[in-house]
């Protein structure tokens, strides 16, 4: 079966030369890096904060921070993973600021097994794309991912939406690989359970 994990790369990443030039003061090289990753950083921030204005601010702050700290970038990780790490930290900080009554961290709500135990055992037929139009489907997916605790939402976003590998996700979040795997499993199972309400196969005569 095809693997879902994105393959790692051994060759020298083209970003390395751009980062080097940017460090030497070449603004055009930095601008190229911004172009390459601004959409991804915006998506990550929007997924974690679930707020468009916050995502706009975070995207700006992330690149500004990266620009200021370019000399600290070690090159042990990919430049994109380093950027994502900055964006995740900025996003979690925003969530903390927004929620006065509740602390928000990567560890919040992840101790509970609630919602991770499969209960719905109906197949999804036909495929969700065949039942709902694009707008309806996007709306369902947005609402469903919003309901996940931030610690799960973040892992799912990096691994399954942004296609980072398990190792890159662990690095970007400062988590161990087993912790990423465990959160990813539970995020996927919780989403599956919630989406089943919309996508499960209807018995004949049952209204949609």
């Amino acid at each position, binding site marked *: 079966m095809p693997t879902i994990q994105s393959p790692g790369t051994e060759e020298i990443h083209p970003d390395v030369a751009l980062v080097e030039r940017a460090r030497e003061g070449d603004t055009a090289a930095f601008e190229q890096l911004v*172009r390459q990753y601004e959409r991804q950083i915006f998506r990550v921030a929007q997924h974690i904060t679930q707020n468009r204005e916050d995502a706009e601010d975070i995207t700006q702050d992330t690149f500004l921070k990266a620009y200021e700290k370019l000399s600290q970038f070690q090159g042990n990780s990919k430049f994109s993973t380093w950027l994502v790490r900055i964006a995740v930290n900025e996003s979690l900080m925003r969530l903390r600021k927004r929620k006065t009554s509740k602390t928000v961290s990567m560890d919040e709500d992840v101790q509970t097994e609630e919602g991770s135990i499969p209960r719905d055992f109906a197949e999804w037929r036909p495929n969700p794309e065949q039942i709902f139009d694009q707008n309806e489907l996007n709306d369902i997916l947005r609402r469903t991912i919003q309901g996940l605790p931030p610690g799960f939402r973040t892992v799912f976003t990096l691994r399954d939406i942004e296609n980072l590998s398990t190792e890159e996700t662990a690095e970007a979040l400062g988590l161990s690989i087993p912790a990423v795997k465990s959160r990813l499993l539970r995020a996927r199972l919780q989403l599956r359970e919630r989406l089943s309400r919309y996508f499960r196969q209807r018995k004949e005569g049952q209204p949609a």
Partner: protein
Amino acid sequence: MNCTDFLSQLTDYFDGQISPELLEEVRTHLAGCHHCEVVLNTTRQTIEVYRGQEIYEISDDLRERLHSAIMTKCLEKKRA
């Protein structure tokens, strides 16, 4: 292998990072457990439906606005 063991292998199974021995056990379990087969199929569909949709697409206008703001701030930093 029971259902809990099966679930604990699900991530590695999707990633194709599972030993041949365990893979055999997973397949044997799936052949006899309809519930786990459904969980496998619908979890795969969950991943695919999220991968297939751009749920937070950024408009060209917003992208340009953000891009200019980022570069303006960086250039200000450089001059400072």
